[in-house]
């Protein structure tokens, strides 16, 4: 755990496409930003849910992939040198005195800022709970969706379910600690780095782990202590003894801590005005998929527009004494200096 305290002009919660573009609009107005995202990479839904799929409605890009768009945004905001805190979830947002906020993450990071921009999209990405009967009863005691401390798994009969990189990586990392290791996946092909698959297969061939073709259907045990998983295999159901289960079935978006910050919510969205995109709390703005207003469209395009207007209002809060002069990037030498092209 770190307990760093940073100070900046604007803290942006969520590094999806809209949070990223906000860095650009704020940067043109000389506002420095920190961004926080629970994902270990920038790009939000574009990066996590559809990196390879085409988007056709980004102005002037007849077609661009989710990942392509994120790469371009990262390039565009590079001159502004925003600081990223990735793999951290914002848990607390508090007002400090008259004109400022402090945002804290689950990793112990604290950031003081004069303005907070909530660009949290559909909420924070969290591991998906697989539809296994009765799994809730074992969560937190025998079933875990992430590994905080590897030591917690030492000496256990471990079952890992899934066929992606997380499943393979944790199979390889935890195998040396586990009493026994079983990987269960519904087919012989994996969606993972070929190198990890090769390593897993080598361990299997050496008898150091079991690979079981099949799907976990239900669990048995008592008082939250797992004893076995019922796995449906091509040859019928079998019981796989295990004391810990780590299911890796991708990520889904849950509103999460955004609900705890005292902001008005309407059906899990944050109502804002359409002049500044400010929330019910002065100094806290909401842009992108997380906000709502009459006529709102959940499009990347709308989020970009919202960023531009929000930035004007943020500027007035951070530098109340400065006059805002409307300028074009094409012709303003001062904007071009900020962009590093002059």
């Amino acid at each position, binding site marked *: 755990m770190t307990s760093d305290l940073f100070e900046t002009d604007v803290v942006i919660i969520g590094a999806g496409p809209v949070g990223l573009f906000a860095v650009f609009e704020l940067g043109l107005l000389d506002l420095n930003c920190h961004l926080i995202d629970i994902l270990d990479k920038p790009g939000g839904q574009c990066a996590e849910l559809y990196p390879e799929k085409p988007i056709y409605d980004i102005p002037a890009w007849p077609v661009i992939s989710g990942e392509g768009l994120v790469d371009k945004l990262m390039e565009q905001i590079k001159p502004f040198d925003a600081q990223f805190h990735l793999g951290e979830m914002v848990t607390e947002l508090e007002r400090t005195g008259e004109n400022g906020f402090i945002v804290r993450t689950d990793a112990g990071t604290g950031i003081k800022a004069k303005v907070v921009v909530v660009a949290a999209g559909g909420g924070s990405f969290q591991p998906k709970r697989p539809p*296994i009967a009765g799994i809730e009863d074992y969560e937190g005691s025998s079933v875990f969706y992430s590994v905080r401390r590897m030591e917690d798994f030492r000496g256990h009969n471990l079952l890992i379910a899934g066929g992606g990189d997380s499943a393979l990586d944790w199979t390889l990392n935890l195998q040396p600690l586990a009493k026994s290791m079983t990987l269960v996946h519904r*087919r012989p092909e994996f969606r993972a780095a070929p190198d990890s698959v090769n390593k897993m297969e080598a361990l299997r061939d050496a008898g150091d782990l079991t690979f079981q073709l099949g799907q976990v259907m239900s669990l048995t045990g008592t008082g939250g202590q797992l004893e076995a998983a019922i796995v449906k295999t091509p040859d019928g159901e079998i019981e796989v003894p295990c004391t810990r289960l780590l299911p890796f079935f991708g990520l889904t978006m849950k509103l999460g801590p955004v609900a705890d910050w005292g902001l008005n919510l309407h059906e899990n969205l944050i109502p804002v005005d359409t002049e500044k995109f400010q929330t019910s709390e002065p100094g806290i703005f909401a842009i992108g998929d997380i906000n709502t207003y009459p006529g709102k469209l959940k499009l990347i395009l709308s989020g970009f527009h919202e960023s531009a207007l929000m930035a004007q209002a943020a500027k007035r809060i951070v530098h109340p004494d400065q006059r805002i002069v409307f300028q074009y990037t094409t012709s303003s030498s001062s904007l071009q200096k900020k962009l590093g092209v002059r």
Partner: protein
Amino acid sequence: MTKIIFIGRDGTRYELDAENGSTVMETAIKSGVPGIEAECGGACACATCHVYVDEAWADKTGVPEPMEEDMLDFAYDVRPTSRLSCQIRVSDDLDGLTVSVPEKQA
């Protein structure tokens, strides 16, 4: 018009008119067939439009592309006839296609 038949979890039969060129998922959503959620709107990114294709139709609907196969990893109780219904395009050939809704979506 092409007819697509959905068998609900409770056995209810939904016989729906489907537009050629649309998808089996869109057909279900338009009529609100319970159990087809389609959270990602047909982008093959959520696995909540999972169906079992009736054995007799499996040849006609074909096999999943690798991307769909990857996404099926997230579905519950995947069987040899499992498909993501947003990836099945409606055409005259599929007139009478019967699919059933699984017990749970991912």
